[in-house]
């Protein structure tokens, strides 16, 4: 195991979020039909920050929902125990909305797949776009993010760690490069 290598520090993370906020506005000159949904758990905090940035830039506070994808996972019953369930809170209709789905890291794409299934159960959005802070490659499903904060080239043995102040006390994106033979902890 090697020491963590920092990809983004607190300031870098803010810069990246700011850029993505601009990109969203660029794509959606009118924000009226837009909603944000954060994937538990760190995607929620990123979505909240994005909500603030977009409000600063446009004066519009977008509705924000929280999605827990646990019930939609494709690996239930495979190990000892199930993931702890948390609440999903989407207190608005998704009908005819454009949803920006926010998550911290995209890797295999399975989490996003589960999240898409979950969103569909709340209605029929007009479109769903995907915003991630980190794209670490390694996709196992044909899923592609629309907004990417940063790219990290990693192997399955590596751990990509996103830390957010609300939850972890500090902001950072780090990579812990795994040694050969050590399986990735997803």
């Amino acid at each position, binding site marked *: 195991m090697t020491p963590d290598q920092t990809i983004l520090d607190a300031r870098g993370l803010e810069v990246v979020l700011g850029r993505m906020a601009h990109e969203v506005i660029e794509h959606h000159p009118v924000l009226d039909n837009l909603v944000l949904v954060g994937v538990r758990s760190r995607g929620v905090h990123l979505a909240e920050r994005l909500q603030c940035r977009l409000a600063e830039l446009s004066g519009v506070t977008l509705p924000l929902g929280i999605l827990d994808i646990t019930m939609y996972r494709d690996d*239930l019953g495979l190990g000892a125990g199930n993931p702890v369930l948390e609440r999903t809170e989407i207190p608005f209709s998704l009908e005819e909305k454009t949803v920006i789905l926010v998550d911290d890291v995209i890797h295999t794409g399975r989490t996003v797949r589960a999240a898409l299934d979950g969103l569909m159960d709340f209605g029929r959005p007009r479109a769903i776009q995907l915003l991630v802070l980190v794209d670490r490659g390694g996709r196992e499903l044909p899923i592609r993010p629309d907004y990417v904060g940063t790219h990290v080239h990693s192997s399955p043995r590596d751990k990509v760690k996103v830390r957010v102040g609300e939850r972890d006390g500090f902001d950072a994106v780090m990579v812990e490069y795994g040694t050969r033979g050590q399986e990735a902890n997803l």
Partner: protein
Amino acid sequence: MIKAVFPHKDLLGIRNLGRDEIVMILDTAESFKEVSRRPIKKVPSLRGQTVINLFYEPSTRTRTSFEIAAKRLSADAVNISASTSSVVKGETLADTVRNLQAMAPDIVVMRHACAGAAEYVAGIIAAGVVNAGDGAHEHPTQALLDLLTMRQHCGRLEGLRLAIIGDIAHSRVARSNLWACRTLGIHARVCGPPSMMPRDLADFGEVEVCSRPEDAIATADVIMMLRLQLERQGTGLFPSLEEYARRYGLNRERLARAPADAVVMHPGPMNRGVEIAGDVADGRRAVILDQVENGVAVRMAILYLLGGSRS
């Protein structure tokens, strides 16, 4: 990812659950409540799993609740009731469940008139067994939905005061709730006709036995009225329905003796005018329909947790 390990193959009773396990079930159930309020009330958690509802006693309510729970988790639910099964042909319970096991169900939900029947079956088959009521022994999912309802309305469980009123001796609902009270630190008072009171409640820990319902409810946060089995009329256990209603039924005057914020629960189905007056059942303090709603969520949680504990 934090895994919720529910270290049981089966849910047989509340007695053998720890405090943390009960809280885990209730928290999981909270998450599932939201699913039942969506336009599309279905998640794929148990896709491909088979849940058999094996009911040796008629129970529309509990069976339906389990069936809905299984279906909202995308499991395939199959109902077997005594009248359509081979029970009538004299097959033993062991043979029946071994036959079911051969069809590879993941979970068997079981209701039976004999205490210990679910535990007996759990020892025989590999599938997870959920006790949906075994004689007068336990009805764990009922107690769990009661707890979820209490927590919802009172904001906590520890230190609550619960009054259970009715036929305690023959009630699995009372027993499962009393075990929960012992484990969670809920103060339990029970009240019922002396002929329907178990001789010795010492195993349940600190349970206060009151001879008058007024005493049982005087400080209660939650009043739980039990269903009176009407077929017990004429067995000498109580003089008459009228006498029972007068002495133990919850009517408006009696409810006025309870604290103003006490809520009223009933496991259903209700005998209006016997153990509970119609205006109380329909009144604003009754949370009986919340119990039903929570029942589906609790059963989803149990199926989900047992589904994950199987390897």
